[in-house]
């Protein structure tokens, strides 16, 4: 828009500005230059890569995924051994990443919500403690925290023979955390089915109670009755059937524990680090969300005679959720991305298995890095798709 108008005598025809000064023309030129530059850079890079690969005798293409990997992975969710393919290693690593991310998200959310609410507590001491937690944890690099948990804490635990015994039959030692494993005996299926029926029935009950309240204004104690359905029904069945669930306790045999669930120190360190670090950010998000609900809303709820619980449930939480959920989702995404730091402590996550070991063995850097980035981009695009859907659903409808 760089048309400068000069003083010109009346009546003369305004001279046509040079074509270069037309903004449309300029925009086309700029964009053509940009495309040209990018295409040239791309061509140059591809050319160099092809040349370099040829000189270093590195194969290209995705055939390597079907070749035998020849290395072991210490913890896998799917059957995997050193005769499995690189493709299988890809999935084993990816599932490990998703496992630690999923468990980490659960813990980070729980700790984060507790700390966020604690920071707003009217109790001075509790609020201070939560503040100290948040300010300490979020100002120290996550990688340092992971190394701390792994090398300074978990690797300093006593050997199996001097394990720390935990209440409930678990043990903690330098080899990891050993927990009792639930073992389902015949008849336990029925309890599981009862649990599912309980959930289904409570959903139905909720819908019915809501409809009835809309029509008649009468409330139904949904919370207690659904709790009875979900916990009570399977619990009762469990007792009637003679407790068909037993626990397999880890027992020290020789130099190590046998039985039970084992959590390796690498997994534990990653889980601790990710949960505690992300929770400090979630705490701030929760705090901001609750503070973001205007005071008038609470006063209005009080004026309507709502109880404390009702005020929280019907007025504060729905509005705070609208503020909290978008940044919360991006924290979940951060946690998933940060789980790639596992490479520093040797947890066999996706990046350490695939981008680390597989890349080193095959040398096919381009393919491996492209696949790595593809995986993370897919996760992040799915997350942002969810976020857009959520934002649309939750957007304030102005009436």
């Amino acid at each position: 828009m760089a048309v400068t108008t000069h003083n010109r005598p009346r009546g003369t025809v305004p001279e046509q500005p040079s074509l270069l000064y037309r903004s449309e023309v300029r925009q086309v030129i700029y964009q053509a230059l940009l495309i040209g530059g990018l295409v040239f850079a791309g061509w140059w890079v591809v050319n160099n890569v092809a040349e370099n690969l040829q000189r270093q005798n590195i194969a290209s293409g995705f055939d390597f995924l079907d070749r035998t990997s020849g290395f072991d992975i210490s913890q896998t969710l799917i059957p995997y051994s050193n005769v499995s393919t690189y493709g299988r290693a890809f999935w084993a690593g990816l599932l490990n990443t998703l496992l630690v991310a999923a468990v980490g998200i659960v813990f980070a959310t729980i700790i984060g919500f507790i700390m966020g609410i604690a920071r707003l507590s009217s109790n001075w001491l509790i609020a201070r403690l939560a503040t100290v937690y948040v300010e300490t944890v979020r100002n120290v690099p996550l990688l340092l925290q992971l190394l701390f948990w792994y090398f300074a804490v978990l690797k300093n635990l006593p050997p199996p023979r001097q394990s720390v015994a935990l209440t409930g039959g678990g043990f903690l030692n330098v080899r990891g955390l050993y927990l009792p494993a639930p073992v389902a005996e015949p008849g336990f299926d029925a309890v599981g089915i009862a649990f599912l029926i309980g959930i289904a029935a409570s959903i139905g009950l909720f819908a019915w109670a809501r409809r009835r309240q809309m029509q008649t204004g009468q409330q139904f104690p949904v919370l207690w009755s659904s709790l009875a359905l979900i916990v009570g029904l399977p619990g009762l069945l469990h007792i009637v059937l003679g407790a068909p669930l037993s626990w397999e306790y880890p027992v020290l045999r020789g130099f190590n524990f046998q039985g039970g669930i084992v959590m390796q120190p690498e997994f534990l360190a990653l889980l601790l680090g990710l949960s505690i670090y992300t929770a400090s950010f979630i705490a701030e998000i929760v705090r901001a969300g609750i503070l973001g609900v205007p005071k008038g809303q609470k006063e209005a709820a009080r004026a309507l005679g709502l109880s404390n619980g009702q005020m929280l449930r019907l007025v504060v939480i729905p509005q705070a959720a609208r503020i909290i959920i978008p940044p919360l989702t991006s924290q979940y995404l951060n946690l998933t991305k940060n789980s790639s730091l596992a490479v520093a402590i040797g947890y066999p996550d996706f990046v350490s298995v695939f981008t680390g070991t597989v890349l080193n063995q095959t040398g096919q850097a381009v393919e491996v890095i492209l696949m790595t980035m593809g995986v993370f981009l897919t996760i992040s695009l799915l997350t942002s798709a969810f976020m857009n859907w959520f934002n649309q659903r939750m957007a304030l409808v102005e009436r």
Partner: protein
Amino acid sequence: MSDTAAEVSLAKMRPPPHSTTGPAAWMRENLFSTWSNTLLTLIGLYVAYLAISGAVSWAFLNATWTGADGSACTRGSAGACWPFVQAKFSQFMYGRYPEAERWRVDLTYILALAGLVPLMMPWVRGKLYLSIYMLAIFPVLAFLLLYGGVGLEVVTTELWGGLLVTLVVASVGIAGAFPIGILLALGRRSNMPIVRWVSVGFIEFVRGVPLITVLFMASVMLPLFLPDGWTIDKLVRALIMVALFSAAYLAEVIRGGLQAIPRGQYEAADALGLRYPQKMGLIILPQALKLVIPGIVNTFIGLFKDTSLVLIIGLFDLLGIVQQNLTDSNWFSPSTAMTGYVFAGLVFWIFCFGMSRYSMFVERRLAAGERR
């Protein structure tokens, strides 16, 4: 009547009842108002006691203060091994930077502080000259001092390490990320479709992948991208990647600021006949950047913490050099690792916490201007 009213002496003001002032009342109000509150306070006291007593006994009471090697720390006490930090302190600060040349690093720090400290004080005048110093003169001086040349002995970047590398990566990262971030933010809001798509593509791509994969890319893929015989210094590679990575995050922060500027400002600039660079540089960006200073500082804090990731590609920043020294067999003891991490954590914490406090200070100051 007014006369009599004036004559009536005011009732002597009485102090508030004793039960509403003083520490006892404060405690009743804030700590023991209800039975559940009292319970919380007791739990909190217990937690605080555990944390403080644990920290004090580890760092002071049970700590080892002197010793020539790790055996001093193996006496069974579970406290910190401070001689380890004492012995390795200069490594933690400078890495393998030659001892005779370390004054150059210190001088660089002093030169940086000389520019940065007055720049950060809102009441100091002459910000323009300070900015020119920091943006144009200081980088040249710093490069000459740290790397060498012009009469100074050259110290290659393999010898750099410790806090020096952390600070170099962080400051070059932010200095590089800033202009790129502004361009990306403007590009994302441009009305030229191709510019917009390229910006959005870059931003979303970078924000979608973890920094560590970007660094991996720098260490294994970048050499493939270049013709045979070209090599880029490992530190420079990390610098480029960190700058590009933070630029994407910074772009989103700046875009937030651009969006918050009222349309009228854009239109007024157009009406004055300003060209695009003038409009952005003189009208829009100064306001937008001011709005998002907290966001920018947060990005910088994130970047500062992320510098620790360079240890994964084999650079020795503060954390990297601590990690490396933990394997020193002379200093093998059960508490060496904990001591090293606590020390590194403390250094990182001081920087990050300081920056976040500074950002809060700036935010309050700017908000004071808005309130008037």
